[in-house]
């Protein structure tokens, strides 16, 4: 269907090529997964296959669609393109109009549009939201709408550029399942760039692993996983938990790419034993440090008692008689479904959602009392913090005195100390030109420069690849050692298990349980980490 031959591409003005010597064959009906670290060229490669969106630059090599070569300013309606942020891709204000938009562009007559809209709305189950304002949809629903309004134009190939990076993991999984159904029923060809591989890796027909603008490996998921694991690539950390957990370099067996496959294996019981042994050997130190933090359970940094909160008089309360204490100098993860009130809870603690007289109390202990300066809150949309033209100015903004007093190389040292030295290379760039993970790093740097005593993080791993997540976990561990209280709200249970000392579950505006994180995740059956799922025989 799509054939790429010896493609090279350099952005105009760039010194290095973004794509070098790419050759790829995509057969009809295939699901091809492009993966690789941030900046490896996967988005650029996708844009090469959609001529309307091909960036300006120098190109050599050929791209063929159904045997015909495509040039940079061709129009290829049969190839659909879906980007990261659903919010920015929705053009119109009504669901029905969004569906009709593409057909209007093609000059399709009104009667035909009417029929196709009805057809697609019925198939995609959009009948109920047909008249709705697009602003009223959730992120996942918006992304589905974008795909539906691309499909309505009769596209045969769907190119998706990290379509779930702005969604929480639950919505992301739902989106993947839905896409899989689409593929099964219509035989549509899908090419997806993604760095979150946990759920999707095993589903692909073909995986293309890219690094530095080149294809490092391609083949079935098991083949690519084998190459990544044996080469001990840093990006191998992004592979599904089950693949990494049961991989043993000594046996020349294909790695498992899904939990179903692993559980179906005759050696499953032995594999679990071996994995458990390896894990306990590796985590001896971590358990000991958890014990020490557990001793400090008595001192609470923040205590919330009987808190009720509603955004206005007409809407139901989001927090319901919530009483909860946040342990000082530890990381507490708050997990729970969508709309359970997690972000609201953080806003209440940060003082952004002031409580009315009768709606409970938030008490800060000891030196934190009423010292609002020392609470820092990293919100979900980190770009709301960015006001400057370059990354360096952004870091320095608001803390100029501190940076000047710190002397030469203060910022560089600060970044190095916190494991963010990757930002140093981006100093002259605009903050919006950073990748999702790097933007989170920049936001965190801004907060950390203000020496917070309480650090509130709302979905900090959104858009981060596996390497960046590990860095963030290390940073949280470092901060809690320095007696900073960290509250982490997340859907990413693996991440929560990795760095939290305590975990609490928020359900319908109430905290149902607060326990030590290891116990919490070991006890839960459904709401648990991929690791626990793989190891519970």
């Amino acid at each position, binding site marked *: 269907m799509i054939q790429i031959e010896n493609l090279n591409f350099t952005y105009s003005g760039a010194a290095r090529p973004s794509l070098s010597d790419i050759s790829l064959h995509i057969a009809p009906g295939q699901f091809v997964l492009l993966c690789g670290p941030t900046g490896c060229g996967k988005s650029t490669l996708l844009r090469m296959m959609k001529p309307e969106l091909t960036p300006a630059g120098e190109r050599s090599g050929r791209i063929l669609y159904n045997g015909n070569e495509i040039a940079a300013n061709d129009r290829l309606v049969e190839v659909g393109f879906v980007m990261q942020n659903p919010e920015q891709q929705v053009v119109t204000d009504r669901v029905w*109009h969004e569906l009709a*938009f593409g057909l209007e*562009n093609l000059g399709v007559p009104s009667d035909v*549009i*009417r029929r196709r809209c009805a057809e697609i709305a019925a198939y995609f189950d959009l009948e109920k939201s047909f008249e709705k304002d*697009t602003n009223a949809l959730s992120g996942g629903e918006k992304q589905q709408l974008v795909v539906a309004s691309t499909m309505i134009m009769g596209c045969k190939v769907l190119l998706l550029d990290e379509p779930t990076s702005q969604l929480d993991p639950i919505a992301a999984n739902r989106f993947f399942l839905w896409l899989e159904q689409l593929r099964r029923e219509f035989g549509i060809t899908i090419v997806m760039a993604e760095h979150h591989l946990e759920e999707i890796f095993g589903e692909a027909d073909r995986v293309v692993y890219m690094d530095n603008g080149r294809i490092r490996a391609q083949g079935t998921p098991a083949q690519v996983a084998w190459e990544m694991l044996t080469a001990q690539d840093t990006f191998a950390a992004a592979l599904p938990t089950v693949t990494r957990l049961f991989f043993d370099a000594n046996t020349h067996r294909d790695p498992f790419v899904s939990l179903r496959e692993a559980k179906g294996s005759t050696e499953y019981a032995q594999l679990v034993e071996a994995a458990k042994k390896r894990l306990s050997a590796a985590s001896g130190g971590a358990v000991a440090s958890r014990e020490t933090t557990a001793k400090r359970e008595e001192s609470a940094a923040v205590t919330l008692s009987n808190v009720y909160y509603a955004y206005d008089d007409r809407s139901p309360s989001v927090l319901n008689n919530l009483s909860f204490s946040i342990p000082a100098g530890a990381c507490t993860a708050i997990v729970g479904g969508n709309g359970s009130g997690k972000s609201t809870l953080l806003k209440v603690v940060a003082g952004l959602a002031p409580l009315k007289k009768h709606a409970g109390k938030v008490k800060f202990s000891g030196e934190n009392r009423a010292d609002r*300066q020392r609470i820092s*809150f990293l919100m979900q949309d980190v770009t709301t913090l960015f006001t400057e033209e370059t990354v360096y100015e952004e870091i320095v903004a*608001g803390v100029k005195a501190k940076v000047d007093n710190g002397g030469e190389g203060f910022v560089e040292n600060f970044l190095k100390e916190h494991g963010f030295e990757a930002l140093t290379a981006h100093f002259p760039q605009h903050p919006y030109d950073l990748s999702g993970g790097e933007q989170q790093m920049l936001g965190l740097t801004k907060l950390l420069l203000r020496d917070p005593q309480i650090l*509130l993080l709302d979905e900090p791993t959104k858009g981060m690849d596996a390497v960046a997540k590990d860095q963030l976990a290390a940073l949280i561990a470092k901060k809690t050692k320095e007696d900073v209280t960290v509250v982490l709200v997340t859907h990413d249970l693996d991440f929560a298990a990795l760095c939290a000392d305590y975990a609490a579950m928020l359900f319908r505006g109430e905290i149902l349980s607060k326990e030590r994180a290891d116990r919490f995740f070991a006890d839960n059956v459904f709401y648990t980490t991929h690791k626990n799922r793989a190891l519970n025989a």
Partner: protein
Amino acid sequence: MRVYLHSRTWFVYFIMVIAILMSIRHPVLILIGLESGLLWWKILGRKLRIAHIFAALFLLGALAVANPLTSSNGATILFYLNGRAFTAEALAYGLLFGAVLVVTLLWCVILSELMTTDRWLNVCGRRFRKTGLVLTMVFRFFPLFTKQWHRIREGQEALEGGSPVGLKATFRMTKRELLCMLTWSLEHGFVTADAMLARGYGAAKRTFFNRETYKAASIGVAIALLAAFTAVITLAIRGGMEAEIYPYVRIHMDGVMDIIGFAAFFLLCHIPMISGKVLREERRMRS
């Protein structure tokens, strides 16, 4: 069967009612306008709050007092203020003017509620399809813009530990927020432009997709509305429903022409409310 009125029928309805209220300033017409406006208010499920009534009374009172202070027309002098005559007629004129304003505002609220964004689009129609596209994008962008601004304010407050204190700090914060919004809008614009290109924007001459067709009910209602409107206007031109203020207040309301005019206006205001099916459709759209 689903019965709905065409967007243009709705649009014309509001234009006619507001035009009559503003051009023929007659107390009885204003009362009819008030009654039907409040009825819509209730049908649309809005609550009447004390604050609304106070706001209306304040507007009415302010205009009633302001007019005689600036105008000394009228024959009945109540008293002199700084050497100027304060007349009962000027007071009545102010009251009437205030009442027209309050009722017109009420109807504007109802207009904004009933004229949903897609209705505005259909009013623009095939002939103004570019305007229509710009309009729908504005309708989409505006709430997004306010939401983002709110988020940015929260983000900045979370960073700085609270809202700014003092004029200078507020100014600086607002400047930062504006810069942030500017970058965000540009970025948003670029991505949206790409998304539009990806979905074939500019590939061919755009068609205008209109989900509405003129149904018999819609045409019937439109004819009835037009008939009622013509009756009111014709009667007014021929001297019916007259409300003279200066030099003496003289309000005509018992002639045959007056009574027919009031009835016609009453019908005009109430026709779209008569059909339960139309109202059900409105509620369904809003649910």
